[in-house]
């Protein structure tokens, strides 16, 4: 890493200053040099070495502050990450102040302070525990030195070190000063999980009391003195160029101060806009309404979803680029007495976080910029703002607030760099708030994927060949100039070759479709669409083979695997073998991908008026090790709700170059009356493997639902979204 070697004390001073803490405070620095040796760090790009990681501050008064490097977007990191430290430090989380880091380099390299890919807990599980254990050992050593007794006779509990034989006690606050001067243990002894008092237990989240009283500060709630507000007119026809604007009427509106051009950068894409600056947000909105703007649409005003879908269907005839190949699909398929083909389609989607995109940016006269953000990565924001403004990363300060939802949208930092650019232009601190319409129509969006499926069964009804050809635009291609269409695009084939079924001839292909609309990660990324095609098609194969879909899957899981355990558990908890009354049906699906593994059974019934109701969802999520089971349940419940919206609601479609859906009236979301009962089962036997939590509950829902609809009605759903009232 590029961090300059600094004296520990200097670094600590900087840190204390940054944290706004004064007085007798001591930061315990701990090495995490060995993080790469950890088996759980397959996802997070944690640093090779961290010279000093001041995650723990202990004041003389005994007050303890733990720094949380992973932004809270609803997934529970405000509890689960500090809990890893607190457990090893033998302190209770309710006695601790938790502070959010802001992407400062002293906490690690890029992505170590970002949230995405269901990676926070599995990335931090050992490193954060080691931070806490090192601090505990240093505090014990400090006490044993002071008492002149062996370390082995001292224990640490409830923020106190105790010498059992003599009954002497010293609080962490009293010890912190001397402890901080001790060398940091290289290999601190971690607690035996059997001794855990926090980890693995359903613990309350410290952010919840703040969120039931209106006290939690989200990015949109930030304010600084002399701040102005901005609303930005950008063309909903993405790719348009600004021909000109007339702000005369806008400037007549009371409170409107200024109208200026501003640029939004989204990966390789640059979009012009006109910002209306005002005393308050309402005035900015009124000014924006009165603004006259002319756009050169660059031909993008003819783009529409119906034509693009036709193009994807035509492209399905192309060979594409091979992603994965086992055996000989063509031969096996040709020789099979029992062949199937099906075509599956899914839509583009908006993320629609409840808190619309926004940013408060203050570009100061010294050329440095400070931002208050709802962002999925303080480190990502600092880097992007520095890049767009062409200033050093060290000149960007970010205060990460609670995020009103993320779902992948807040990995892209366009909202931050745009506000920073605007603040530089106008020379004032400015809060830019996107309208819901901006947030819905301007992307980046989840890509649509179409899947051409082909499969073959042996004479005895076993799946012997499977081909999954994905026809879709590419996230990477819409963001990066360097995209190479001749190479397999792993993201667009995500998970298609990771399922554990014994299918001897497996072939996956990707056919690239160009699009000018920016695309990005959406909770569970491409698995959110490809699992639908893949697991519905397996259901089709099961029915073609005349077999029960659960039994068909289990028969293909001849080797011991986590998938097999998940399906067996699911079969048990869902009562799969108990027949359902007429008019009801159940469907099963599972998905194993980079974020983790889960399986679901969905139960549906036919309603009196010819529709379908979703009655219950059983979910088994495989984790290995669990940190907070209640958070896991909440994440799975939420994944089900989000997946149901994706399967059943509007999605994003384009006409005349712009998204038809702009607000929640046309871009409808699941509501409370549509939420089924959800029963969550966690497989967590312990051990070295930790799987993700935030995303795996999502991909199995749509296929399990569609498979259930087939079981209840005999109708096969091959296109999302679909209408439950008109199956």
């Amino acid at each position, binding site marked *: 890493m590029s961090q300059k070697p600094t004296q520990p004390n200097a670094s600590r001073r900087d840190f204390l200053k940054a944290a706004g803490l004064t007085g007798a405070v001591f930061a315990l620095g701990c090495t995490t040099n060995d993080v790469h040796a950890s088996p759980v760090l397959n996802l997070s790009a944690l640093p090779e070495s961290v010279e000093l990681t001041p995650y723990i501050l202990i004041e003389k008064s005994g007050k303890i502050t733990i720094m949380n490097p992973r932004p809270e977007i609803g*997934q529970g990191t405000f509890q689960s990450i500090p809990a890893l430290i607190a457990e090893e430090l033998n302190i209770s989380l309710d006695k601790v102040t938790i502070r959010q880091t802001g992407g400062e380099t002293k906490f690690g390299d890029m992505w170590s302070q970002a949230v995405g890919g269901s990676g926070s807990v599995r990335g931090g599980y050992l490193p954060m525990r080691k931070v806490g254990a090192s601090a505990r050992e240093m505090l014990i050593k400090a006490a044993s030195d002071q008492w002149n007794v062996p370390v082995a006779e001292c224990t640490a509990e409830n923020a106190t070190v105790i010498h059992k034989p003599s009954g002497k006690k010293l609080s962490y606050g009293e010890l912190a000063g001397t402890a901080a001067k001790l060398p940091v243990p290289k290999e601190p002894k971690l607690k035996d999980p059997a001794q855990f008092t926090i980890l693995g237990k359903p613990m309350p989240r410290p952010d*919840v009391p703040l969120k039931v009283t209106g006290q939690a500060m989200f990015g949109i709630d930030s304010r600084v003195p002399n701040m102005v507000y901005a609303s930005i007119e950008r063309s909903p026809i993405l790719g348009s160029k600004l021909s000109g604007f007339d702000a005369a009427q806008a400037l007549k509106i009371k409170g409107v101060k200024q109208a200026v051009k501003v640029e939004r950068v989204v990966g390789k894409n640059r979009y012009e806009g006109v910002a209306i600056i005002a005393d308050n*947000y*309402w005035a900015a909105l009124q000014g924006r309404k009165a603004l006259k703007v002319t756009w050169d649409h660059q031909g993008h005003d003819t783009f529409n979803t119906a034509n693009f879908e036709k193009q994807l269907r035509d492209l399905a005839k192309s060979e594409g680029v091979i992603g994965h190949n086992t055996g000989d699909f063509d031969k096996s398929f040709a020789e099979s007495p029992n062949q199937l083909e099906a075509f599956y389609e899914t839509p583009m989607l908006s993320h629609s976080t*409840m808190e*619309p995109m926004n940013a408060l940016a203050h570009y100061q006269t010294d050329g440095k910029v400070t931002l208050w953000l709802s962002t999925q990565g303080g480190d990502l924001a600092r880097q992007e703002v520095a890049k767009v403004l062409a200033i050093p990363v060290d000149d960007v300060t970010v205060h990460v607030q609670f995020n009103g939802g993320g779902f992948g949208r807040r990995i892209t930092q366009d909202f931050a760099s745009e506000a920073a650019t605007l603040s530089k232009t106008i020379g004032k601190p400015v809060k830019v708030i996107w309208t819901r319409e901006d947030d819905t129509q301007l992307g980046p969006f989840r890509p649509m994927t179409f899947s051409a499926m082909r499969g073959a069964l042996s004479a005895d009804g076993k799946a012997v060949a499977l081909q999954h050809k994905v026809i879709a635009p590419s996230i990477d291609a819409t963001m990066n100039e360097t995209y190479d269409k001749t190479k397999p695009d792993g993201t667009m084939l995500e998970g298609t070759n990771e399922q554990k079924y014994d299918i001897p001839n497996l072939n996956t292909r990707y056919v690239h479709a160009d699009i000018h609309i920016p695309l990005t990660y959406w909770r569970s990324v491409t698995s959110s669409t490809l699992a639908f095609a893949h697991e519905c098609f397996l259901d089709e194969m099961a029915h073609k083979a005349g077999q029960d879909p659960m039994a068909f899957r289990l028969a293909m899981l001849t080797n011991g695997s986590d998938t097999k355990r998940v399906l067996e558990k699911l079969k048990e908890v869902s009562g799969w073998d108990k027949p359902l009354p007429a008019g009801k049906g159940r469907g099963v699906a599972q998905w194993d991908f980079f974020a983790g593994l889960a399986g679901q059974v969905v139960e549906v019934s036919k309603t009196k008026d010819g529709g379908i109701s979703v009655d219950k969802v059983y979910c088994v999520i495989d984790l290995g090790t669990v940190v907070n089971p209640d958070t896991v349940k909440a994440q799975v419940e939420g994944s089900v*709700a989000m997946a149901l919206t994706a399967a059943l609601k509007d999605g994003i479609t384009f006409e005349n170059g712009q998204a038809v859906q702009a607000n929640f*009236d046309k871009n409808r979301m699941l509501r409370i009356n549509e939420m089924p009962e959800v029963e969550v089962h966690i497989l967590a036997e312990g051990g070295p493997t930790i799987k993700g939590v935030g995303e795996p509950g999502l991909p199995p829902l749509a296929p399990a639902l569609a498979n259930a609809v087939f079981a209840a009605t005999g109708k096969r759903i091959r296109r999302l979204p679909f209408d439950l009232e008109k199956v």
Partner: protein
Amino acid sequence: MASFKLTINNQPHTVDVEPTMPLLWAIRDVVGLTGTKFGCGIAQCGACTVHLDGNPIRSCSYPVSAAAGHKITTIEGISKNADHPVQKAWVEHQVPQCGYCQSGQIMSAVALLKQTPKPTDADIDTAMQGNICRCGTYNRVRAAIHTASGEMASLPKSTPKVGKR
């Protein structure tokens, strides 16, 4: 511009704004109470729900001029010590995830329980349908409302006035 007298959480405020400014922005930008959230601006999501004389309204679509002279309650005003039965039930069930919609959810729930102390699931569906939660906390919202209902039923109908002893 015009001057409006607002009573928010029993505190008087005078705001000097356009009459058409939605109450939401007067509460957030002018008065400075940020617990009430902006979600959609068209009364579709419920994040901005506050009470006007005890009834839930969508403050993003309610002009400040129409709110003047009425008793406005925001999330900051439903209890002094975060001890409203609905808030306690929300903590007990660990309802919020990202939390952004929860001020509105709670304001709708408080209004529901005032109107219907023992709501059925159908009552909850009707009263809470206007509040979108993208994190999917709906089942916990439902469970927490039932819990709060139970707790409120066990409380005296109205808090007895405590005289000086």
